[in-house]
C-alpha cells in the first residue's frame, strides 16, 4: 500500500496497464520526455520506450484520429489532451468517429481507447484551461464519461477505462491532482464504470457530486451535520452511462435531492439528474430538487474566478434551503 495523490494514482494506473498489456500505448503533447505538463505520464517513456510513450505533434485532431486508427488495428491507446479546453480541434474525431465506429460497422471495427484530459477550474490558469465540459461528451451516444474524485478511484477507474471495449473520456479534476493523499493498493484493480458510490449515507437529503466538487460538498456536509442534519453523499464517478438506480433509491429514502457541479448551470448535467429524480422518485419528494452549479458566464480569468464556481459557503447555504423547505 502506498500513499498517493490523485496524479500519482493516474500515473500508476497507466504504468501498471502498460506492464500488463503491451498493446497499451500512451501519447499526447509533451507526455514523453517531460512526462506531461502535470507529470501524469512521468517515467513512462523511460520505462517502456519511445514507441509506447511518445510526444505527439501539437494537434489534437491527430492525437484522437491516429488513436482511433491504432485502436482499430489492435492497440489500446491512452491519449492525453493537455487541457479539456483544448479538445475542440479533436472533438470532431471524438464525436464523428470514435463514438460511432462500432455502430457504423455493426461491430466490425471498435475503438477501445481512453482520452484523458485534466478539467475544471481553481488553479488560477489562463483562458481555456478551466472548463468543465462533461456534458459535451455525455450527450454523445457511443462515449463513456468517467470522472474520479479520489486517488483510489482514479487508479481503479482508469485501469477499468483502459480495459473497456468502448471509447472512454477520462476527465481528471486538476484542482485536486495534488490536494490530498490516500492509501492506494500496490496491486492492479479496477472499479466498475457505470456505478456510483455512496460516500456516506444519511437520511434527510441526497446530494450528488463528482470530481473536485465531491470534496467541497463533503466540507459543506460536515458543517450542516453539526446543525443536526443527516445527509447522503453520492459520488457519481461515471457521468455516462448514469447509475440512475443508486440515485433513485437514495432519494426514495431521503425525500430530498441536490446536485452540485462545476459545469455551467443551463443545460448542464444537473438538469439530467433532476429529471432522473423526477421520473424515478417524484412522489417521494418533500422539497423541489435543486442544482448548485457554476453560472452561465464565460469562465473568468483568475481574478474573477471566485465568482464562478460554487464555494463551500454557497453549497452550505443552498443545501440548508432544501433541508428546511
Amino acid at each position: 500500500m502506498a500513499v498517493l495523490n490523485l496524479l500519482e494514482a493516474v500515473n500508476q494506473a497507466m504504468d501498471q496497464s502498460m506492464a500488463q498489456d503491451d498493446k497499451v500505448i500512451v501519447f499526447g503533447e509533451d507526455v514523453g520526455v517531460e512526462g506531461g505538463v502535470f507529470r501524469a505520464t512521468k517515467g513512462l517513456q523511460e520505462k517502456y520506450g519511445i514507441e509506447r510513450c511518445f510526444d505527439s505533434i501539437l494537434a489534437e485532431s491527430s492525437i484522437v484520429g491516429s488513436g482511433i486508427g491504432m485502436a482499430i488495428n489492435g492497440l489500446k491507446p491512452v491519449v492525453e489532451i493537455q487541457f479539456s479546453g483544448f479538445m475542440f480541434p479533436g472533438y470532431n474525431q471524438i464525436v464523428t468517429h470514435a463514438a460511432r465506429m462500432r455502430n457504423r460497422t455493426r461491430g466490425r471495427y471498435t475503438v477501445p481507447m481512453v482520452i484523458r484530459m485534466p478539467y475544471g477550474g481553481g488553479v488560477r490558469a489562463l483562458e481555456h484551461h478551466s472548463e468543465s465540459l462533461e456534458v459535451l461528451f455525455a450527450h454523445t451516444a457511443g462515449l463513456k464519461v468517467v470522472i474520479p474524485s479520489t486517488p483510489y478511484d482514479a487508479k481503479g477507474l482508469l485501469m477499468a477505462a483502459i480495459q473497456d471495449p468502448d471509447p472512454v473520456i477520462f476527465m481528471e479534476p486538476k484542482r485536486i491532482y495534488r490536494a490530498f493523499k490516500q492509501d492506494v493498493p500496490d496491486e492492479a484493480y479496477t472499479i466498475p464504470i457505470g456505478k456510483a458510490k455512496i460516500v456516506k449515507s444519511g437520511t434527510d437529503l441526497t446530494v450528488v457530486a463528482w470530481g473536485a466538487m465531491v470534496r467541497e460538498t463533503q466540507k459543506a456536509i460536515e458543517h450542516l451535520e453539526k446543525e443536526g442534519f443527516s445527509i447522503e453523499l453520492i459520488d457519481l464517478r461515471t457521468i455516462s452511462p448514469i447509475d440512475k438506480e443508486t440515485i433513485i433509491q437514495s432519494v426514495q429514502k431521503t425525500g430530498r435531492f441536490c446536485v452540485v457541479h462545476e459545469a455551467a448551470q443551463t443545460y448542464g448535467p444537473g438538469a439530467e439528474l433532476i429529471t432522473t429524480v423526477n421520473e424515478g422518485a417524484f412522489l417521494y419528494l418533500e422539497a423541489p430538487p435543486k442544482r448548485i452549479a457554476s453560472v452561465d458566464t464565460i469562465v473568468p480569468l483568475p481574478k474573477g474566478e471566485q465568482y464562478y464556481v460554487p464555494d463551500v459557503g454557497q453549497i452550505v447555504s443552498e443545501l440548508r434551503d432544501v433541508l428546511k423547505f
Partner: protein
Amino acid sequence: MLFKAFNPLLDEMIQILNKDGELVHPEWLPDLGPEALVDLYETMRFSRIIDEKTLQYQRQGRMLTYAPNLGQEAAQVGSSAALGANDWVAPSFRELGVWLNRGASLEHIFLYWFGNEMGMRMPEDIRVLPVSVPIASQMQHATGLAYASRYKGTNEIAVAYVGDGGTSQGDFHEALNFASVQDLPNVFIIQNNQFAISTRRQLQTKAKTIAQKAIGYGIPGIVVDGNDVLAMYAVTREAVERARNGEGPTLIEAYTYRMGAHTTSDDPTVYRDDSEVESWREKDPIDRFRKFLIREGHWSDEKESEFVSERSDYVKTVFEKVEKSGGVDLKDIFDYVYEKRTPILEAQYQKKKAYFQKEGK
C-alpha cells in the same frame, strides 16, 4: 525511381498510356501479365456498370442518395491493385473501385447505400475502413493504422484516399505531418477530380499542383494521370514498396475528373458546361485502357459485350435481393452503440419494442 523522375513543382505528370491508349512510356510499363491486366480492366468496367445501373435505380425511386465514381475508375482501381492482401485502406465515400478491388461484395456495398449499416460490416479479411463522410478525417485514421502495424511488426501499410477539396481540411495537414514526422508506412492518394461538389480545385489552393504540398512535409509527391490505370498502378506500387521498406510516406495526386454529379442530389449543369465534360470524355480511363488491351490482343468487342451483359444481370440480381432485404431490426440500432446495452438503452429499447408491437409495425 518515378518519384525522383517527376518534379511536382514543375507541373510534370506521369502518363504511361495516352488518351488513345497508346503506350507513350513503355519503360515504365508495370510488370503485369495478361491476366492481371484484364483483371484491372474488368474491375474498372464492373465499377462503371454498377454506377450506371445504380443511377437508373435511383431515378426510378428505388435507391437513396448515391455518390457515383464515374470517371475515377482508373485512379481507384490502379492504385488499390498495388496493395498487399493485408494492407489497410481508409477510404472517403466515393471509392467504389477500391472496395471492389479489395474484395468487398456488391451486396454489402448496395446494402450500405440502401440505408442499412450492416453493409459496412465487411468480412474480417477486408481491411478497408467504412465510408467516412467528414471530409479528410479518415486520413488521421490511416496514420494510426500504420503506426500500429509498425509497432506490431506486421509489415502492413495503410493507404488513405481523399479528394482535392479534402486537402483544404486541417486533418489533411495533420495526417501528412504526423506520418512524415514518424516516418509511417502510409500512402496518401489525392483524387483531384477538379471539384468539391461545385467548388473548383482552383478555389481550394493557390498551389500549382497538390502533389507539391508534399515538399513542405519533407516527403515525396508526384502528379499522375489519374485516368491512366497503368500509371496509377506503377506509381502506387513504388509508394507501397517505399512504405513497406521503412522509407516513410508519400503523396500521390491522381489528376482526374468527376464525370458524374457529386451525388444524386446534385445538379452539375449549374456549375459546369457540357463542353468541359465532353473534353474529359475523350480522356476516359476505361475507353483508353480497352483500346490498349484490344491492341495487345487481351480483349475484344465480343468479350466486352459478353462481360457487360453478364455483369449487368449480376448487378440487377444483387440489387433486387438487397431491395427485398427489408428494414433494419429494432435491436440493431441499440446493439452496437456500446459492446453491451447500457441500462438506459435497455429501457429505451423495451419501450420502443412495446410500442411497435402494439401498433403492429
